[in-house]
């Protein structure tokens, strides 16, 4: 009975696992940049070998960052039904589009070929790779480092008056308040439940009922959010915050030789994934 209220515990955002590995100590901007590049590269690669290498890389990163692989698996678990449904749909309906190779089944509109099987397997593996990679990124990089990296990587956009500082502050504040609101929501659910409201007793497939259940929670939550926002503005103004004003920065990251090296290796890796003609 207790589990359905404990939202704050199951929040993984900003779940930083400090093992102080060399992955943790890399310049976060390099990590973020490589993450984006490699995910794109994986999305381009359609070969078995390429994706096997990608999968191997993501497993290696778990090992290298000394983070238990169970963290990655717990990220994959909720996605499994989705992956299966996607695979089935692709297998049944996309055969006509990828009709190369040997034909295994040809029955009505269903056409299963070695090419369409490749598509199915590769996209499932790809999915898992991307979940693993993003887990490693967020588990080895604190949210502050991430927001600073976003700010730093976007900073060239300042020239065209893109509000980089503001965006990064908004991101930081949102992340900062996720656990606060989760706790708030828990309190509210308990309060409502103690007055006879019913949470989580309908199965997950009863979507309408479950959506209705959340209304008595969401609306007061909005209220609380607004009053908190008002307080926060006062506190920020009292500490000399001026929107659009210049600010200095507390965290500064130095890109060292080893960061450049990792960047180079990563880019090379991505290049190969995209352009190397894997035989299988």
């Amino acid at each position, binding site marked *: 009975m207790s589990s359905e209220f404990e939202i704050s515990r199951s929040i993984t955002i900003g779940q930083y696992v400090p093992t102080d590995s060399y992955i943790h100590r890399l310049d976060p901007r390099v990590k973020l940049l490589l993450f984006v590049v490699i995910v794109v590269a994986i999305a381009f690669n359609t070969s078995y070998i390429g994706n096997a290498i990608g999968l191997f890389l993501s497993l290696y990163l778990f090992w290298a960052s000394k983070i238990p692989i169970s963290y990655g698996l717990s990220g994959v678990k909720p996605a499994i039904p989705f992956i299966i449904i996607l695979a089935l749909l692709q297998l049944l309906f996309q055969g006509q589009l990828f009709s190369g190779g040997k034909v295994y089944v040809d029955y009505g509109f269903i056409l299963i070929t070695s090419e369409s099987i490749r598509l199915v397997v590769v996209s499932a593996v790809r999915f898992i790779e991307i979940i693993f990679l993003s887990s490693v990124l967020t588990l080895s990089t604190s949210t502050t480092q991430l*927001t600073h990296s976003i700010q730093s990587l976007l900073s060239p956009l300042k020239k065209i008056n893109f509000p980089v500082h503001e965006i990064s502050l908004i991101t930081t504040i949102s992340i900062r308040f996720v656990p606060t609101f989760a706790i708030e929501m828990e309190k509210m659910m308990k309060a409502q439940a103690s007055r006879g409201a019913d949470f989580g007793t309908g199965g997950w497939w009863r979507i309408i009922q479950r959506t209705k259940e959340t209304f008595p929670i969401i609306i007061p939550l909005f209220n609380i959010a607004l009053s908190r926002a008002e307080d*926060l503005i006062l*506190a920020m103004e009292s500490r000399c915050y001026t929107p659009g004003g210049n600010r*200095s920065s507390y965290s500064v990251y130095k890109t060292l030789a080893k960061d450049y090296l990792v960047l180079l290796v990563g880019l090379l890796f991505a290049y190969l994934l995209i352009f190397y003609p894997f035989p299988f």
Partner: protein
Amino acid sequence: MEPIIRLENVSFSYKINEKTKVSVLKNISFSIIPGEYVAIIGHNGSGKSTLSKHLNGILTPDNGDVWVHGNNTKDTNNKRSIRQTVGTVFQHPDNQIVATIVEEDVAFGLENIEVPREEMKKRVDEALNVVKMSQFRHRPPHHLSGGQKQRVAIAGVLAMHPDCIVFDEATSMLDSFGRKEVLQVMRKMNNMGMTIITVTHHMSEAAEADRIIVIEDGQIVMDAPPREIFKHKQELKNLQLEVPSVSQMAEGIHQQFPDFSTELIQEDEFIDEVMKFSKVEVI
């Protein structure tokens, strides 16, 4: 001495809409001298928070003036220097922490006033030290207790090197342990020469101050040292205020033993008096 904050005939009303206004502050004047420790008390809705928002220019008076180090809060050019001089710690520890890591939050104000990085590091270390939160510097705020969060908020203000800190019910969300932690920090900062203004509902907290200002319906009704204020039990009662529990107990004992002093406002005084009294009785 030149006052750090001077209010002259300050009046203020909130505008609810075009026609209605709620008049909250009515012709308030007082001065605060550098190094003073002042408590502001008054029942709910008497205008204490509104008053404290005037002290650093978050709100500006409709009539009258607020001067901080001789700078008028109405002049927007003074805004930054005034907020650097007078910092504020608010009631809800959760609603004033901006960053996702303790030390980053302490640095937030410093980033705003563009302190160079080396200086920033030094000040963050120093401020965390004063509030005894150094070992928590890398924690996310939601892993801290209420008292600890409030001390982080204080460190954030402290790092800006203000001359005066206003605490608007900064202890009201805390349990007695958390409150003690924060009170200790306040005492310490006052001893370091900082001006402290604290808005509170806890009379034992007000008793710590050098001076108490009692607000009723947007006006100052009493302004005196605590010992003086707490003599006026009946007046305070009429203002829906109490005397510290120590004074109440002393009064109770006084009923039984007329020699027992009624003018006690602090715990240690009370203990001393009990010791003195019990010795007399035994001998």
